[in-house]
């Protein structure tokens, strides 16, 4: 408990809205036999302390690769971070040695994954898997680490934590596995928790509880959360800031209130309109025509133009890719047709 209160005081003393992590011009490429897959291109955003930042987009748009790049866990040897900076508390993670990076992983930045069950090792007890991280980063004895692990499981809402710590992942339900993953991730009180589609594979009722758990832990520990999801409902409820990704690039970013009030990019608008809302019964939901382009066959110009109501007939959209520009304070968009976009230069 002491550690938590100390940390809270530390947080207070610091600038509350200080930046914890900033990603600048990140590009991550995969070198495959068919060619170079540019999964992430010139992505930049920053995450404030104690806040939740959501990265939204359809599957395959590069969200997960962005997260893995931050952890420097892009699957080698095909995957490589081609450029950019990832600055955590003033240090560029891309310049750290592998040994120093290991001290960051699990300790400063922890990550939970969408595949909650397979992300746990089937042949070790859940308790030992949590204790392993505690032992490594908090320099504790095995027994202390185990006690901590049980405590973490209890905090994550697992009943009979002491007994259940001795069980194996296959004895847990899907939602329980995700709780175990969360317990493992927050066991070393990370400054940043990356949650990659944390609730996608879960029932709706359990989704809410898992997100509540994350909120609660965030309030206790004051950690920042990078929430990766395709579910706009979750974003609207939980995120402070949002970036929308499409085909390897960020196309729009803002704080969530402004973004939801008035999306600027046609893609974001399309996503919004495809969302069911109260009071709009009787009207069919709109869909975005077409499919996400494959990374090896990205269209020229703006990558969204073949699916965009404006871009389909606009020469400029078809030939020149718009970069992400700040159109209002704290509000960025990458679209030739967005209001105020051209006057920013």
């Amino acid at each position, binding site marked *: 408990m002491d550690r938590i209160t100390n940390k809270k005081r530390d947080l207070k003393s610091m600038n509350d809205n200080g930046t914890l992590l900033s990603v600048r011009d990140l590009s991550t490429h995969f070198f495959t036999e068919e060619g170079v897959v540019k999964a992430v291109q010139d992505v930049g955003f920053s995450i404030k302390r104690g806040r939740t930042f959501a990265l939204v987009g359809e599957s395959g748009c590069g969200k997960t690769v962005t997260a893995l790049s931050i*952890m420097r866990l892009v699957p080698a040897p*095909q995957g490589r971070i081609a450029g950019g900076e990832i600055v955590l508390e003033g240090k560029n993670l891309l310049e750290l040695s592998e040994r120093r990076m290991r001290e960051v992983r*699990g*300790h400063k930045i922890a990550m939970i994954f969408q595949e909650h069950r397979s*992300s746990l*090792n089937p*042949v*070790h007890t859940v308790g030992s898997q949590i204790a392993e991280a505690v032992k490594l*980063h908090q320099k504790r004895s095995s027994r202390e680490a185990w006690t901590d692990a049980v405590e973490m499981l209890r905090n994550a809402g697992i009943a009979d934590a002491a007994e259940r710590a001795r069980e194996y992942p296959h004895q847990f339900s899907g939602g329980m596995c995700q709780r175990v993953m969360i317990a*493992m991730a927050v066991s070393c009180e990370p400054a940043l928790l990356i949650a990659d589609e944390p609730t996608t594979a879960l029932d709706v009722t359990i989704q809410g509880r898992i997100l509540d758990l994350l909120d609660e832990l965030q309030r206790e520990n004051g950690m920042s959360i990078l929430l990766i999801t395709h579910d706009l409902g979750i974003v609207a409820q939980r995120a402070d800031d949002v970036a929308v990704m499409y085909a390897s690039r960020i196309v729009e970013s803002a704080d969530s209130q402004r973004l939801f009030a008035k999306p600027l990019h046609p893609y974001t608008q399309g996503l919004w309109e495809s969302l069911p809302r109260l009071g709009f019964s009787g009207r069919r939901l709109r869909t975005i025509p077409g499919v996400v382009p494959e990374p090896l066959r990205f269209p020229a110009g703006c990558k969204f133009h073949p699916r965009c109501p404006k871009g389909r007939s606009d020469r400029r959209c078809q030939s020149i890719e718009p970069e992400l520009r700040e159109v209002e304070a704290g509000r960025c968009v990458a679209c030739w047709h967005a209001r105020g976009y051209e006057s920013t230069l």
Partner: protein
Amino acid sequence: MTTYIIRRLLYCVPIVFGVLLLTFVLFVVIGGDISIEIAGKGASQETIDEIREEYGLNEPLFLGWDSQFINHFKNALTFDFGRARDRELVIDKIKRGVGPSLALTVPMFFAVVVIAVSLSLVIAFVHGSMWDIFAVVVCIAGMSVPFLSFILFGQYFLAYKWGLFPIFFSSDLTMAQNVALPVLIGVAAGLGGNVRFYRTVMLDEMGRDYVRTAFAKGLSARRVLFKHVLKNALIPIITRMAMAIPFLFLGSLLLERFFGIPGLGYLMVEAIGARDYSVISAMTYISAIFFVVFNLITDICYSLVDPRVSLE
């Protein structure tokens, strides 16, 4: 657990029955009357009749309590396999051969497993690099060279030309000296296929989600490999090992033949050459029993390694 083992042992009954039926049909019914061959050329009808009496060949094949079929079963279940062509008890021959065979195959087996698993861990660690490609090429080359070439190379160069090892089995030497070169050859020949197999197993495991989690915790690659990957990889490793163990008792046909090691492989080759059905049938029966037993042991091992497997 106990009930599981008992149930599994009951399943073995029809398998053993099938094996005995097959060996009976092959070696007694189809193999036919061997008394003339045993008696040799120019033997009198009297001698042949005596032999027929002694080997029980006068009894009916199937009908009656004293039929050859029932006797075949009774003998097998009591491990009484009768006499070989040279009139020695088959069971004595087998007992004599087991020692040298195991002296050859057991060190060979463990050396191959230990070296191949360690190498495959190292290769999994550097996978995708030039070292990995190099290792795979060497493995495939090793697999492609016929076993006989390994034997001939070893015997000609290492033993004959350079005199590092005895060329042929000799009872004056210790067993260790006698089997040193055959073991070395066996290991060299076996490594290629085994390293390649275990490498695939390791890489399979390396690609799993829990490995990513382990790295995300900040564990070192070494710890991830030894604590997380190896324990999961044990499941296919145990399968492969358990399937190989019955063969250890059968010895190595080629190595024993080439180096004159008086083991079970040698015994088998000789028995086949001499149409010594009682020996062949006994060896077949014994190896079938080993297979059944080790299959059971494999399943028990699974439950020890993998918490998801329970034997109830």
